[in-house]
Structures are given as structure tokens and as C-alpha cells.
């Protein structure tokens, strides 16, 4: 088994897995962020107009913060999946090299 070649192949497989999977997600984080901002602006206006009590407005604004937290959790999970794919792709290359050496 040529360790240097296998290492290069593993690295390339990992890079390929990371780059190849991200586009599969049909995300529009910008749209989610815009929506949060739009809601926050509306809540402020509704409070000023007396359509919401201060207590309701406070709760609703806090909900927007929680939406952003949920978005950040999504991003972290997706990054973990990409790392997982990259490691497993690299391992597949190693597995193939070892099998070839044994044969």
C-alpha cells in the first residue's frame, strides 16, 4: 500500500464529500433572517399603536431571538453532517486501499 498516495486520495475524497453535499440543502437563511427582522419591526409598530401590550410585545420579541437560536442549531448540525461525510469518504478510500493490499 502506498501510504502517500492513499493519504492524498483520502484528502481528495473528504474534500469532494464536503463540497458535494452542501448544495443539496435548499436553504435560504437570508429569507429567515429577513422574516425575523420584519416581524421585530412589526411588533414594535403594533406596540406603539396599542395593538399589543408591553408584555405581549416582550414575549413576541423574545420568540424572534429563539428563532435565530434555532437557525444557528440547524447550521451547526449541517456542518456536523458535512464533517461526518468527509471523514467517512476518507475512510472508504483507506478501506479500499487496505483491501487491495490484502488481496
Amino acid at each position, binding site marked *: 500500500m502506498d501510504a502517500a498516495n492513499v493519504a492524498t486520495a483520502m484528502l481528495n475524497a473528504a474534500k469532494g464529500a464536503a463540497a458535494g*453535499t*452542501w448544495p*443539496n*440543502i*435548499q*436553504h435560504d437563511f437570508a429569507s*429567515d433572517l429577513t*422574516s425575523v427582522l420584519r*416581524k421585530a419591526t*412589526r*411588533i414594535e409598530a*403594533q406596540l406603539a399603536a396599542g*395593538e*399589543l*401590550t408591553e*408584555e*405581549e410585545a416582550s*414575549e*413576541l420579541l423574545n*420568540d*424572534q431571538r*429563539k*428563532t435565530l*437560536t*434555532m*437557525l444557528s*442549531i*440547524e447550521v*451547526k*448540525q*449541517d456542518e*456536523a*453532517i*458535512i*464533517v*461526518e*461525510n468527509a*471523514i*467517512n469518504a476518507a*475512510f472508504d478510500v*483507506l*478501506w479500499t486501499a*487496505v*483491501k487491495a*493490499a*490484502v488481496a
Partner: protein
Amino acid sequence: MPRLVLQLLRRCNVVALVLTLAACHINLVAPYDDQFVNDAVTVQTDFDTLIQTLRNPPNGTSVTYDANKASYNKINVDLSRLVTQAQTHTNNQPMIDQTTTLAGVVREVEATHRRTGHLSIAYLDDKQETVDQQIGIVIRTETDKKALN
């Protein structure tokens, strides 16, 4: 030790290594769960039904907290089932964290309704839009697992 035996042992070690490597795919994130997505849709359906009833009550329907307690109970059961479904998998902390946050946001509606006795139209509109967005994020985060694999 005879050379043949040594060769055999070496061969066995290599085979063992090969078998170990074959089983070495790591799982950092729990697999996609279709039941979880169905449970999230159920939460959304029951929540939206309650909000719509409170916003535009049919004739003879009361919008007091007590009159809608059964709907809140149903939604609480839906939420518990959703969180439990997330907890059934290892390496699923992101979904557990998201659903716990979502459950808190939804349950605030009941707490506010019970405390104030009345929910304004503006509050109901904003809350529904927010909860629907959050359920959308939860479902998308789950389906990302499928899309990325």
C-alpha cells in the same frame, strides 16, 4: 515458531484490521426520522387550528382559556411526543434543543391566555407566524439529514 504459522497470524491480523475498518463509518448526527417530521406536522396542524378558532371563533364558540383547555392539552401532548421522538435517537441533540425551544414558545401562548384571559388579534397573528416559521425550521433541520446524505 514455524514460518507458516507466523504468516497465518499476520494474515489474520490484516483480516481483523480490514473487518474493523469496514465497520468504522462514524455517525456524528442521528439518521433522518420520518415519524419525527409527521409529529411536527401534527403540532403545526393542532396549533394553527386553535389559533384560527381564537382569531375567528365559530358562532357559539367561547375564546376564554377554560373553553379551549382541551385544545391546549392536545397540543401539549403533541409537543411531548415530538420531544420524546427526538430523544429516541443518539447524536440528536440539535433536534432535542430545537423541539424544546419550540415547545417553550408554543406553551407561552397557553400561559399568557390563562394569565390575561384574552389574546389580541395582533398577538395571535404574530405568534402563529412565528411558530409556523419555527416548525418549518425544525422540519427542515430534520430533512437536511436526508438531503446531505
